[in-house]
């Protein structure tokens, strides 16, 4: 098998001790400070690929705006270049004013700083969003782009038909980039009470991911954060609380959960440098609720797991 088992090294962040001390389960419950200082757990190297992951954002509410403001604060110390959007970019109507209210106005400071947004489509999104100037979808419902040593696959999990599956297989088969990351809306693995794992989607995409050495998968749909225990060597993350929150929806004691946070909205900061992917999850009040390092194992020279 091409893939060598990857490893995850959790960083112990001293500043989080008080938060985690409240609950020794995998679920992080602590969340009471009004606004925590910016604390970076990432290496923040100049030559890294640095980006943010958010999902289920498009409400236009003040909560979405507050989270965007935290993202902006973090960008002052961690200059991420782009943002991956996990879908449900716009809830409800999609008139001209909705694009402004639910996206442009919220993220204007980031757009002004030339931060690019790359969107996937969710079940609340009109297909025509693929033409929208700020979503950088190249007019496609599914598309691919590269940044440094990372290959990104934006998929349309609303409609994973044969055409898309064939495209994904063909594209991955010739992709020799060091890191392969997929992002889309519906999670193949989830501990959510409202939705849960999308097993029909998993049945189709997981064999492709395994065959072609996908390293990491980001999804949304569930309105919380969850890091799934590695499945067949692949790291799955859910980041679907960028504009909505389903408080307390993560099933207690789920065997899938490595870490979950469903007490407030959150986003992910990601840094990929060479053979490591660092992640940090930040809540709406600025607290870091999860962080760690994934050591890429699918290296051409067969690097061993750490």
């Amino acid at each position: 098998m091409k893939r060598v088992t990857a490893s995850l090294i959790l960083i112990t962040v001293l500043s989080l001790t008080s938060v985690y001390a409240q609950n020794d389960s995998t679920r992080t419950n602590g969340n009471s400070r009004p606004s925590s200082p910016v604390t970076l757990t990432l290496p923040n190297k100049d030559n890294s690929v640095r980006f943010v992951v958010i999902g289920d954002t498009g409400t236009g509410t003040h909560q979405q705006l507050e989270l965007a403001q935290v993202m902006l604060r973090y960008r002052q110390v961690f200059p991420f270049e782009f943002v991956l959007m996990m879908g449900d970019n716009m809830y409800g109507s999609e008139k001209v004013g909705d694009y402004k209210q639910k996206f442009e106005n919220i993220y204007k400071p980031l757009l002004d700083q030339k931060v690019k947004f790359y969107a996937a489509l969710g079940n609340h999104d009109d297909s025509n969003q693929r033409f929208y100037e700020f979503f950088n979808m190249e007019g496609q419902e599914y598309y691919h782009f590269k940044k440094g040593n990372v290959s990104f696959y934006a998929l349309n999990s609303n409609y994973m038909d044969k055409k898309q599956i064939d495209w994904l297989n063909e594209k991955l088969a010739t992709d020799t980039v060091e890191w392969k990351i997929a992002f889309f809306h519906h999670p193949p693995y989830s501990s959510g009470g409202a939705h849960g794992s999308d097993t029909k989607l998993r049945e189709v995409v997981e064999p492709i991911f395994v065959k072609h050495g996908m390293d990491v998968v980001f999804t949304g749909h569930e309105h919380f954060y969850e890091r799934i225990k590695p499945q067949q060597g692949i790291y799955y993350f859910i980041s679907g609380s960028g504009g909505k929150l389903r408080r307390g929806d993560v099933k207690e004691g789920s065997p899938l959960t490595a870490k979950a946070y469903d007490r407030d909205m959150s986003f992910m900061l990601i840094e990929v440098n060479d053979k490591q992917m660092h992640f940090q999850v930040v809540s709406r009040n600025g607290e870091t609720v999860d962080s760690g390092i994934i050591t890429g194992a699918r290296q051409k020279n067969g690097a061993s797991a750490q």
Partner: protein
Amino acid sequence: MRINPRPAIIAAIIVCVAQIAAGQTKAPPALSANDQLVADAFEKRAKDYAKMREQLEEQMPKLSKEAKPEEIQAHKQQFQDRVRAARAGAKHGDVFTPEAATLIRAIIKDEFKGKDRVELRHTVLKESEIKAVPLRVNYPYPESQEVLEMAPTLLLRLPQLPKQLRYRFVGPNLLLLDRENGLIIDYMTNALP
């Protein structure tokens, strides 16, 4: 005479293991010759629609890949108007003929069994917000309503559509939608098992 089921089970396991090892998605079961004819005829009707709407779209200003919301909205509205005018006489059952609907019902029923069927019915009938979608051919799908995910395993089994069209569940019904102009091209009732 009792048939020993073991060889068939072993063969099925070997095929599954081989598919997993090769990273392949499980191949859907083949249709009978008669069903294939029905599916082919359905696909042709879908392609005929796609060809017609492509010709109409070619006459319109091309939408940029970096369009502004105003341009997206104007393009969609204009596209809808043109297709609706061209299909003014379209009616329920033009694409989903009774034969095609019967075949599709059977495929859905076969795909969703047991727990999957319960989950599908729960999702489509209870959880979704789409009950307000009017079933009217040549009318737009309301843009404020969510579009339920179609199970990929089902999409691999249903008659294949051109890229311009989509299947969508709305309540117990299955719609054929134009993904770009949002029009309901046709629908079939009682699609859910």
